Structures are given as structure tokens and as C-alpha cells.
């Protein structure tokens, strides 16, 4: 080393400074690109479907159709908020439809027996218990969320069917039945509930400590553990909240229908996951996008209402939903690829 032929002075500091500025620029560009893709991913389809609906579908803007779309979208959105939180944690809850059925049936029977308030409380209590079951299976028994909630999808459905004996339950309480159909200042009550619940979710995820911990656990579980975050507690809470959200939506649904049965809301998980992903929450975990979920729920309600008004057989709605899910997921991957490209420099 001492007799090295020549010593070069490498200007490390300058080059590092340059590199730093360059990286700041790249980082900003990546963040911008991602946020644009995330927003456009929901806004463009939303506007397109809205325009298509107005132009192509007769009476799309009729008062009854608008109310319909707002109520349907609201009930889906409330379920999907909970799903957003679970997916942000790299989890999933496939049992939301079955949970909703149990809650609706329990609530219907309780409303008939004891009246409106005890009925609602019984429904929420049932939802929390089912959420605890999901959460405990995932955190304590360490069953992967996909399998755990696939199992409870079956179990809860069975409970709902056993509970009702397979027969529909008519809700006799007219006050309960009027919740979903009444409106305040012309705005349907379920829509107001969805906006308020959504605001609550947004606040918790975006402004509260709990929300930061959700992003940490979903984004990098090892970092979360090393930061002293109680990962399992966060996960447990998320599954309980997801079930409770599905339960609240189930109460509104029961109120809207006036009659419930054990096979209510089957296949709901597909819709909920589709709107969450379409709304910009990544299946790879990290940050949940509540506003996106809300808009995507309205979008799906518009598609369904439009197809109904056009007298398209409801079977096509399944196909539309499936395609929407594929679109949403490919957008999610494209988003991550776009960010990676910026860092690896595949695109200047």
C-alpha cells in the first residue's frame, strides 16, 4: 500500500452530493407517478362509467336510480373500509359475506323479539365475536389469513343457515325498516352513514398512531416488530374492525331488504376485494386508501345499476366484476413496476 504507484484523490463528497440530488429528483418523480396512477386508476373508470351511464342508460339520472346507486354503493363501501384496513396489513378477510349474513339474521331476530336498539346492539356484538374468531385464528393459531378466513367463510355461512333453519326472516319493526329507506335533506341515510364511517376510517388510518402502525406492519413487518409495535394486537384489532364494518353494512342491508335469510351476501368478498384494490390499496400491503375504496364502491354500484336498467341478465354482472378485479390488480402491479422503473432507470 505504501509503495502504491500513484494516489488518486477521489472526490467522494461532491459525487455523493450529486448522487443525492439526483436521487431526490428520482424519488419525487416516483412518488408523483405513483400517486397519479393511483388516482387515475379510480377516477378515469369512474368518470367513464358515469358518462357511459348518462349517455347510454335510460333513466340513469332518475331520482330513484340515483338513490339506489347511493344506497348500494354505501352498503358496499362500509364493508370495504374494513377490508381496506385488513389488506393494508397484508391480510385478507374472505368471510365478510358470511359475517354479514350472520349479523343480519341475528339482528332481524333480535329486532323482532326486543325492538330496534337491542337488535342493533345484538348484531354488532355478533360481528365483533366473529371478528375476534378470525383475528385469533390468524394471530394466535398462526393460520395464514387467506386460509383462516376461507374456513370461517364456510363456518359462518353454516351458522347463518343453521340459525335461520334455511327460512327467510321477515322484520316486523317498521322503524328499523325505515332506516335504510329514509333520507335527511334528500340524502339517503346509508350514504350519510358511509361518509361518516369512511371519515372515521380515514382519520384513524391517516392521522392516528394506530394508522401509522398499520402501515408499518403492512409495509415491513420486521421493522414494525423491531420498533416495539405489538404486531399481533394490531392484526387482531383489524379483523375485529373488518367484521364490525361488515356487520354495520349488514344492518343497513337488513333494513333495506326487510327480510333476510342465511344465504344473504354470498360472494360479497369478491366485490369488497375488487373495490379495495381498484381504490388504490395494494395487495402487497402498506398504505390503505379509504377515499379510493369509497369511490370504487360507488363505481361498482353504478355498473350494476346500469346493467340492471339495460336489462342485461345479472349473470353478466359477475363477468363485469371479475374483469374489474383483473383490471384493478394489473393496475396495482403496474403501479409498483412504474416505481421500480424510476429507481432502476429503465425509463428516463
Amino acid at each position, binding site marked *: 500500500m505504501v509503495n502504491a504507484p*500513484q*494516489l488518486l484523490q477521489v472526490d467522494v463528497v461532491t459525487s455523493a452530493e450529486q*448522487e443525492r440530488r439526483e436521487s431526490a429528483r428520482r*424519488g419525487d418523480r416516483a412518488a408523483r407517478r405513483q400517486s397519479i396512477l393511483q388516482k387515475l386508476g379510480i377516477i378515469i373508470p369512474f368518470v367513464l362509467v358515469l358518462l357511459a351511464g348518462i349517455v347510454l342508460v335510460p333513466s340513469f339520472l332518475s331520482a330513484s336510480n340515483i338513490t339506489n346507486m347511493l344506497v348500494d354503493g354505501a352498503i358496499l363501501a362500509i364493508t370495504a373500509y374494513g377490508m381496506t384496513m385488513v389488506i393494508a396489513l397484508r391480510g385478507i378477510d374472505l368471510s365478510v359475506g358470511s359475517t354479514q349474513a350472520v349479523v343480519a339474521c341475528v339482528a332481524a331476530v333480535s329486532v323482532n323479539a326486543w325492538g330496534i336498539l337491542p337488535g342493533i346492539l345484538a348484531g354488532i356484538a355478533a360481528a365483533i365475536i366473529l371478528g375476534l374468531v378470525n383475528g385469533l385464528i390468524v394471530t394466535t393459531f398462526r393460520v395464514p389469513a387467506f386460509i383462516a378466513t376461507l374456513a370461517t367463510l364456510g363456518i359462518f355461512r353454516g351458522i347463518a343457515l343453521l340459525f335461520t333453519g334455511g327460512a327467510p326472516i321477515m322484520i316486523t319493526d317498521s322503524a328499523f325498516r325505515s332506516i335504510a329507506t329514509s333520507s335527511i335533506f334528500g340524502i339517503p341515510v346509508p350514504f350519510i352513514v358511509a361518509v361518516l364511517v369512511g371519515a372515521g376510517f380515514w382519520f384513524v388510518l391517516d392521522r392516528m398512531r394506530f394508522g401509522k402502525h398499520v402501515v408499518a406492519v403492512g409495509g415491513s413487518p420486521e421493522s*414494525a416488530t423491531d420498533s416495539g409495535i405489538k404486531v399481533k394486537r394490531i392484526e387482531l384489532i383489524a379483523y375485529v374492525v373488518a367484521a364490525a364494518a361488515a356487520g354495520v353494512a349488514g344492518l343497513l342491508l337488513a333494513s333495506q331488504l326487510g327480510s333476510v335469510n342465511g344465504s344473504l351476501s354470498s360472494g360479497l368478498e369478491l366485490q369488497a376485494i375488487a373495490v379495495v384494490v381498484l381504490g388504490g390499496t395494494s395487495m402487497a400491503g402498506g398504505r390503505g386508501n379509504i377515499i379510493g375504496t369509497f369511490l370504487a364502491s360507488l363505481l361498482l354500484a353504478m355498473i350494476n345499476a346500469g346493467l340492471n336498467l339495460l336489462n342485461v341478465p345479472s349473470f353478466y354482472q359477475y363477468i363485469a366484476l371479475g374483469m374489474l378485479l383483473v383490471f384493478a390488480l394489473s393496475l396495482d402491479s403496474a403501479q409498483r413496476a412504474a416505481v421500480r422503473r424510476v429507481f432502476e432507470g429503465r425509463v428516463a
Partner: protein
Amino acid sequence: MTAMLAVENVVQQYPGVRALKGVSLSLDEGRILALVGENGAGKSTLIRILAGIEQPVEGTLRLRGEIRRLTNSAESQAAGISVVSQEFRLVPQLSIADNIMLGHELRTAGVVRARGTRARVRELLSTLGLDLNPDRLVSSLTTGDQQMVEIARALSRDFEVLIMDEPTAALNRAEIARLHGIVRRLAAQGKTIMYVSHHLDEVFDLCDEVAVLRDGSLVHRSSTSELNEQTLIEHMLGRKPQVFGRADGAATANDARLVVDGLCIGGFEEPFSLAVGTGEIVGLAGLAGSGRGELTRALFGDRAVLAGSISIDGETVQVRSVPTAIRAGIYMLSEDRKSEGILPHLDVTENMMVSRDTKSVSWWHRLAPSRREEGDLFEELHRELRIRVPNGRHLIGNLSGGNQQKVLLGRALQSGCRVLLLNEPTRGVDVGAKLEIYQLIRRLATQGVAVIVSSSDAPELTAISDRCLVYLSGRQTAELVGSDITEDNIVGASVGQIAVGGTHG
């Protein structure tokens, strides 16, 4: 005076490796203790124990004389131990501010106080001399800035003991100087600091005392003023480094097997150019962010190449994906053997045959490999590579790191490669198996394979490379040949402080 923090007879074992063999070490208040040792000496294990991430098999930990058990990192932090870990523990989706305050957010009734947090973080960052927007996402930062954020995060907690695991690995000189100033100030305030570093000048410059770990034991401890660099290195190595018989008449560039010309890789300003001769072993050295890992990945088609050419035996090859790279005769073994190397649920034979060059295999056996033929082939390699496994039906996951690596070298052999890229070939491999792997690599080279070894282990590079290229931030700072390949030269050039120029030594 009772020590602030002390470990007594701490033993830690991993399957097949005794990482710590009864270490006792105490840290005094207001002092900066350097912890040095070669890679694999047990420094990181000791830190993980102090951070509460791992629990020792035996031994006790005392905080101000009291016996404590730290069963998770929250307990360690509550006890006043703050750790800057070597691998980043940051959440890419959160902002700088949220990352720094993660786990101890400023809040009122669960609601994060955004303005207070931002002010506190800005203040912390400015003491570190960083001018970063606290709202920027961590995923958009350079490695150096991420390192600073990691440090800011450790400083943001209430702590009595600060443990820093190679905090300067990704920093430039100005940042290092600023960091040293902060560490000195903290010590003057009575904080206890443990500083792990590979850079000996740092140790002498900054630390009051130095403790040396070697092969899981504490072999030396004294005040830094009683030592000089030479004696410290002797303590670290324990002896002269075992020089592996190196062919001094290194292959000339005339019969260059692999020629890389002006290869541009995203994230690095300057293109990479190098040539590796037939039978030559070229070492790549450099710290985090040097680009050597990215270079090997780009050559293997696992990372986008923006411009430049790669040719093998004079023929230009297009490496667009991993399969095209393998077809062109390039094979790479990843540094992350566990998740990117072994296929843990397959046995050793299957693991070895998975990338096999199937030109000589009949079409039927390509679809349904013949167990007998593969078994025979395995037996041959089993003897040749000296893999310690009773038979070819053994699951690879149950083998030691060294034997796994031998199986993977066998896999590379079976791919019929002409260029072999090795990343950290002996990471997690014990000393005995290390030498065998060096011999295997050398034998591969003598059979004509052009070998590139990318390693953070300087003694390893001095032991096996015919030529050693040292990188810093994507720029080659030195090309060392023959007797110039020393640990000092490699370490010096990789921090850019000493750049040894020229092949004409």
C-alpha cells in the same frame, strides 16, 4: 463503579454454528467502546441480543448491575437501549417523520400531533446536518440518507445506551465527521456508546476503548491509546491471515473470457467496464451502495441494463433475462443463499440438477428426469465437491451453510457455465468449509471458468482473487493485482480514502 450495561458469559447458538462462545463485556457510562472483529466474529449476534431481538442460550445481561431479560425489542428500548442496526429497519411506505417516530409517536389521545412531530424531526435532522423534507417517503431516499434516517431514529428515543452497528458504511466523509461529533457530544453528556466498525481509523479517532471479538469469543480489550492499528489487526485475525495458494502468474487479458464494456445500470452514473480472463478469479469489493451486487445481477439478467455490451469468448451476448444469461453460459449464486439459492423442500440431487444443461439429455428425460442417471451424476460430484451428506435423497435445508454452498456450486457446474458470478460465497459458512470452498472455486477456475467473486469480506478477497476491483458509489476506485491485494488496500479503496491506481505496479 457498576457498569452501565454488561453481559456475562453470553452463549448463542444457531444450527451448526456457535456464534458466541461465552462473551463477557461491560460498557461504562460516558465512554465510547469500539467493538471490532472480522465478519462472522459474532458482533451482530451480540448486538441483536442487546436489542432484544434474540435471546441468548446462556448468560445474563445486567443493566446498572441489575439482571434483566430482554425478550423483545420493545423491552430493550424501554430499558434505555437504542440501536442503529446495520440492515435498515425502515418502512418504505411511511414518511421520514413517521419512520423516525415509529413506536413512540408524539400524540394526544392516539392522534398523532403532525406539527409537533414535523418540528421535532426537523430539529433532529438538522443536528445530523440533513436538509430533508420530513414528509418525504423513505422509499425515495438514497442508501446514505436512509442510513442517516436510521440514525436519527435511534437518537429520537430516550436512551442511556446507544449501539451503532457500522453506522458509517454508507456515508460520505462530511457526514461521517458530523456523526463523530454527535457521538462525542452524546458521550460527554454521559451516554454510553458501543460503536461497531470495520474502519480502524474510526476506531482510533473516536473511541475510548476497543474490544475485539474473534470466532465468537472476546479476545482483547484495552483502551485505544494502548494499541496501534497493527496490533489491533493482529488481535482481530489472531494470526497472519491464511494465504490461499494464489497463482501469481495471473491469466492475461489476452484470452479474456468475459468482457463487459460500458455497462450502464440504473441508479449508477458511470458505466461499468471489466474483463475476466479464462481461469481468472476477479474479486469485487466495495461497501453498501458500491454497485458490485447490482453489477452481478445485471450480468445475470436480473436487473435492467440501459446500455453497453457483454461478450463471452469474443461473442456478444444479449442478457435480457435470467434464462438467456444461463443459455449464454453465465451463472450466478446469490448472497442470500436461503431465499434465493436453495430449494429447501427438494433433496440435494434435485437441487443440483435444477439448472442443468439439458443438451446431452434425451427429450424424454428432460421431461421426466431419470433418477438413476441423476443419482450417478450426483455421486460423482458428491465425492468431487466433498459434500458432507449421507446420500442424494437428503433435503438440502438440513445441511450446514458450507455444504449447501457446495451443492449450489455443483448446480452452477451442471449449468455448464463459462462465467460464474459468486456473491458472498462463504457468508454463514464456518472456517473449515470456507477453505474447501476456496479450493473448489480455484478448481473451477483452472477448468477454464471465468469467476467473479463479489464479497464484503476483505480477507476472503485477498485469499482467492487474482485481481481485485474496488468500487465506491458505482465508480471503480482501484484495481489491485498480485501482492497489492491486501486487506488494507481493499478497505482503503472501498471508502475512497486511499485509491491505489494502476495495474502497472
